[in-house]
């Protein structure tokens, strides 16, 4: 069943094409309503994690509308946030620039031309304070795509300094300890340290920011442009299970943190596959948490699913087609009961979102919410022979794949041996081949093409460039030299001690280190050393303060 011979069976993704019948009839699906579906808000939560509710008249939706944002210096991103909130966003979604996403300071030599032009630059505690200044953090939920421990420490510290009770903070942090190094977010950090930071962040947040979701299993970035929906969720569950096991092993009861676990999934173009994937994932999660991990609190069994629509489905050709794709994906996610989503912008294939693309993304969500009625009824596709059959198929195949991979051995050893890396790499090649040979139809790319002279709509927007923030690089260099070095060194020594102690919390120590003026790069550097890696594997960071 492999797509091509010659790969080791264990390191390949099985063929994930779903055979679809031309018509589904009652005999094609076995529906036991109470066992497999139940009402939204009831086990096994297939139809939704929360009870259905009737909306009164013009009552606004409880949907979180947000768009991926973050650009340049923290102050510029703060302006971007204000713009989005003024235009109807009800949540924020922050992403760091390439150095930040690699746990690297703005003045690292490798960062030179990448500071601020693909996200916000966040080297220091003060950067987070500037990022959130004037934002009502007690009312706006903030989703973060940032290095886990630093994003949480920065958010927590900034909120406190800005006068907010951390107990009121809402939002989330993506967590991808197992797959970051193998995909596009390498921090050059050992896997054991990735896991440690993930678990410490969960423990820290469950104690100090109880309304915040510190554990968002992000299957978006591991899957976009490579693996298909079944493998996406199988790998996501493998990572999620490993983190749950390790958190429990640190002494936290499963019900103490499981209510704050969420999923952030991808949404590609196949409407019913994506709906079935989300419904199957809710059910699989509920059964797994109850039966395997012994969770009892209903909130531990009902998982919130958020989504980011596939950037890889957006094309550089015929940019206006991407707006249509975004609308279709928004409709899909709304029908799947997803209440927080970001739409990949129409310029996604070429640049980070422009202001015009942001507003189109928000308006797309608003049109679907306000005008189409698809969100008025919970799980509107429930009971469809086709959707239920597909949901069953997804659940079965995801579960089989999880058990198969876990049966191969220790997950971290598999990762170290390159098992997951080869899955992602092969899938990227397969996907490109399918587009090239036309087996995967993409309008404007391999069918229904336009010549360059006709394909001119929105081209002016994608030609706009964001220059790297060289002035910020200079500012960080000067800041580094101006600090109270005794406090910085003391905080890094304390972080080292926390890292060495299996029961101490490194995220709490990072909060203190940010407060004392240490940088993200310095913190990750000393932690790398605790875990047997060089302070800076790329050997181009500023020296460790002594």
């Amino acid at each position, binding site marked *: 069943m492999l797509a091509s011979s010659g790969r080791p069976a264990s390191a390949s993704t099985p063929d994930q094409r779903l055979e679809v019948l031309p018509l589904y009839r009652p005999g094609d699906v076995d529906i036991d309503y109470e066992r497999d579906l139940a009402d939204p808000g009831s086990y096994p939560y297939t139809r939704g994690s929360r009870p259905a509710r009737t909306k009164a008249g013009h009552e606004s939706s409880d949907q979180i509308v947000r768009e991926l944002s973050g650009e340049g210096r923290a102050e510029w991103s703060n302006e971007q946030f204000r713009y989005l909130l003024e235009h109807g966003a009800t949540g924020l979604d922050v992403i760091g620039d390439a150095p930040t*996403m690699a746990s690297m300071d703005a003045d690292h030599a*490798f960062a030179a031309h990448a500071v601020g032009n693909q996200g916000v630059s966040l080297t220091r505690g003060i950067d987070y304070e500037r990022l959130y200044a004037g934002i009502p953090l007690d009312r706006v939920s903030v989703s973060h795509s940032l290095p886990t421990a630093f994003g949480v420490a920065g958010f927590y510290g900034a909120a406190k300094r800005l006068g907010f009770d951390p107990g009121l903070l809402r939002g989330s942090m993506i967590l991808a300890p197992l797959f970051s190094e193998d995909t*596009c977010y*390498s921090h050059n950090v050992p896997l054991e340290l990735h896991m440690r930071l993930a678990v410490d962040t969960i423990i820290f947040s469950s104690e100090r920011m109880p309304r915040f979701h510190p554990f968002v299993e992000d299957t978006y970035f591991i899957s976009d442009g490579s693996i298909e929906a079944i493998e996406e969720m199988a790998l996501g569950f493998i990572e999620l299970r490993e983190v749950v096991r390790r958190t429990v092993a640190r002494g936290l009861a499963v019900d103490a943190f499981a209510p704050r676990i969420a999923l952030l999934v991808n949404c590609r173009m196949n409407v019913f596959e994506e709906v079935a994937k989300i419904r199957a994932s809710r059910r699989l999660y509920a059964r797994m948490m109850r039966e395997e991990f012994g969770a009892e609190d209903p909130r531990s069994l009902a998982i919130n699913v958020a989504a980011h629509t596939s950037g890889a489905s957006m094309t550089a*050709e015929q940019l206006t087609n991407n707006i249509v794709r975004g609308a279709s994906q928004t409709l899909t996610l709304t029908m799947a009961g997803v209440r927080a989503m970001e739409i990949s912008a129409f310029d996604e*294939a070429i640049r980070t979102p422009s202001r015009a693309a942001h507003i189109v993304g928000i308006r797309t969500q608003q049109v679907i919410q306000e005008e189409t009625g698809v969100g008025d009824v919970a799980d509107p596709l429930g009971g469809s022979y086709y959707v239920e059959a597909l949901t069953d198929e997804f659940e079965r195949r995801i579960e089989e794949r999880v058990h198969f991979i876990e049966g191969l051995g220790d997950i971290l050893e598999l990762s170290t041996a390159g098992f997951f890396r080869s899955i992602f790499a092969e899938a*990227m*090649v397969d996907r490109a081949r399918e587009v*090239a040979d036309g087996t995967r139809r993409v309008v404007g790319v391999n069918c229904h093409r336009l010549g360059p002279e006709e394909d001119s709509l929105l*081209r002016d927007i994608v030609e706009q460039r964001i220059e790297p923030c060289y002035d910020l690089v200079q500012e960080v260099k000067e800041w580094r030299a101006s600090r109270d070095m005794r406090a910085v060194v003391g905080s890094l020594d304390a972080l080292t001690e926390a890292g060495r102690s299996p029961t101490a919390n490194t995220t709490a120590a990072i909060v203190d280190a940010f407060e004392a003026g240490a940088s993200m790069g310095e913190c990750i550097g000393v932690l790398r050393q605790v875990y047997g890696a060089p302070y800076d594997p790329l050997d181009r960071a500023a020296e460790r303060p002594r």
Partner: protein
Amino acid sequence: MTHGRVRALITVLGLDQHEAGALVVSRMLRDAGMEVIYTGRFALPATIGEVAVQEDVDVVGVSVHSWEFLYYAPDLVERLSSAEPPIPIVIGGSIVTEADRERAIAAGVTEVVRAGATEEQIVALFARLASPEFRQALPHNERSFSSSNPLDSPQIGRIRSGE
């Protein structure tokens, strides 16, 4: 058609961690019979220049999904054109716009591959640029780069053709 004698270096620049293009093009060239060396992520122009010379490659392909290439291109061109004979550079990626293409070519990049290029076109391009006649005709840069620091960036996940 096979291109058994061609040696190509495929790389990703700076902090650009999107590898899909690099992996896909590596596979295409390998399937066409070329020998492909992939540097992995975290490569700066100095590393690329030195590895290209040490490995005696005929052509360098840079897969880009970040604007960093616009700033690194002149340095890369300077280093690879100091090889004897000069080593041509192909930059490729879906994010590359027409204006970017013009900037890269003005900086001395040999060819730019944008969204929509087919496998046949890409393979034929590498084969054409890798030919001794083409390389001999490229402008040569007299500046030499010493190997004081053999690896300006560590080679992470370096994958060699056939391994």
